């Protein structure tokens, strides 16, 4: 049963997943490209090397979130398309069915995570890490995997629910901040109090303090002190 669900999910996302695996492998290599080269002509401090590497850091959580979103949205694709007839015809409980389906997607997230781990290992093997710095391939991969799984679980839950529930959650998560932004922008002159509202700051605070997105912020550096 699990194999069939895994196969169905794989079939739905295989091309997107292949792209993600390649990106996950390449990203660590790109982030360390400033390290190395001829020491006689190279310039810049360790700090600037890390600064260059940090330009790539935002792409790690973005990639993890993208993987989670694609897997989550595709998990229930066949069920919705055929009105859940296949699932309802199976002699198993919904709990078991959902668990197997989620497990199938979780297994698929391992592929880009393995790609990232391999890419990280190749990256740190290909450069001479300056004195005082360390490489964190396992920590980076672990964070990447859990970030992808969290976003996958969120979208999986949304897609499993009714359209109404999904719409409510999306409106609350995305709609209200956007509404506040628009209100501050267009009505700020008429209502000065609106200019005091800073939705961007609120969103950042929610990201940092609590909520499922907390794992997306934090230290994503492959090479650090």
């Amino acid at each position: 049963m699990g194999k069939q669900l895994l196969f169905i999910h794989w079939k739905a996302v295989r091309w997107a997943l292949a792209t993600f695996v390649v990106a996950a492998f390449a990203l660590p290599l790109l982030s360390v490209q400033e390290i190395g080269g001829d020491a006689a002509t190279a310039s810049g401090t360790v700090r600037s090397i890390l600064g260059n590497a940090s330009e790539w850091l935002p792409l790690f959580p973005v990639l993890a979130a993208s993987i989670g979103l694609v897997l989550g949205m595709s998990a229930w694709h066949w069920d919705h398309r055929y009105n859940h007839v296949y699932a309802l015809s199976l002699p198993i409980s919904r709990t078991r069915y959902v668990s197997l389906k989620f497990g199938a997607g979780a297994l698929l997230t391992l592929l880009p995570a393995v790609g990232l781990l391999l890419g990280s290992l190749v990256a740190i093997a290909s450069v001479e890490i300056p004195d005082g710095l360390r490489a964190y391939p396992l920590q980076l991969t672990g964070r990447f995997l859990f970030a992808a799984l969290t976003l996958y679980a969120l979208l999986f839950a949304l897609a499993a629910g009714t359209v109404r529930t999904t719409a409510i959650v999306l409106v609350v998560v995305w709609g209200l901040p956007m509404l506040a932004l628009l209100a501050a922008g267009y009505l700020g002159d008429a209502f000065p109090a609106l200019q005091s509202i800073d939705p961007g700051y609120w969103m950042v605070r929610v990201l940092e303090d609590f909520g499922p997105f907390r794992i997306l912020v934090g230290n994503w550096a492959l090479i650090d002190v």
Partner: protein
Amino acid sequence: MSRRASAFALKPARAGFLVGMLASLVAPLGAAARQAPDEELALVRARAQAELLRLTPLLAEARSAWSAANTERVNAEARRVVNGTDTIQVGPLRVIVFDGEGEAARPYFENAWAHYSAMLDGDPLSLPQRLFAFQHGFLRRKWYLPAHVKRIELVWARPAEVQRAVNDAVGRTLSPHLPQAQRRWAGSTVGQEPSFEAVYRELVLGAAPPILHCAGCSGHLRLPRNAFSASAPLVACRQGDTDACWAAMGATGNGEIAADIALWYGDDFGRWIEPLGPGCGRDHDSYCEQAISYFWEDLPPLGDASRASLISLALEMGGRGSLVRLIETRGYRTDDNGRRILGEPIDYPEILSSAAAVGPDELMTEWLRRVQAAKPDRAGTDRDARFGAILWITLFIALAIRSTRWRLG
């Protein structure tokens, strides 16, 4: 304020009028004197002198009254009631808050004042002259305050962030009272609790390279690979050599930049520097040296964060009166007139050990211990993040099981 003083306050031009009157009296007398015989000249001079003697005290009195009236006006402005606001007093700190928010603001200022009062040991410098305005909430409200009020306005901040902002504001009022040498190390917020994790990064990575700002410069001081992080004193400091730590912070005891640069980065430092502008290149060492001498303070491998944290630690270790000792210790030799001898290096170890009331070696050992202990715990933070993620994943799976489109009938 007396009526007389207010009159002067309202008409400050009166002082100028008195001066004009004095001049108008003396000028014709002087003109007459040019034409008069000697005895008349002496008489005129005597009369002029008498007029001067009579009017000079009036002028001084006018100036004094005007000054007093101005001071009174500034104080009255500070006491002026702004509609919808209240004022709280914490030690010498006076804080404007919105009505009803005084008690919420008070603990932050009490903590800040407790932090600094012991260091000042009853010598509050000019803190009473500084007025703070504080608001903290979900929205920032507008209020119209005099320009000299130090505003602390936070929106949806954590209590720790609010406390830090208040400490920061109080520290900023103290920093200007430091002598130049001490202020250079302490930064703008003396005694602020340092982030030793940031200092640890500086200990490993070296300070951020300075950005050059001079006519015709490239705007970027390019250094050899690992120049700052591989600096010999910095490496030795990381390994526990406290003398090297002092040197890495810039307290070398040298009076010449060339000697300092040789100590920090070796003799060939100059040839690695990219052209700073016309005439400065690898073949023009003297010009380069002159150009980078402007950035002497920014070139030590340990930078502002490290030096400020050392000052904070010295104040903390010194306890009562530490800030006063920091201010009063000169750290350089003076000539007979009490002026600093030109080119005399500043003895920072002496200044800071005086503030900390311990020896320089002991102070630096404690600093190094705290910095090493603040090494970022990557595994710990990742573990926390993973734990939170597992909780959310479990919740979402539960929701997915409960919420369904499977409906019968």
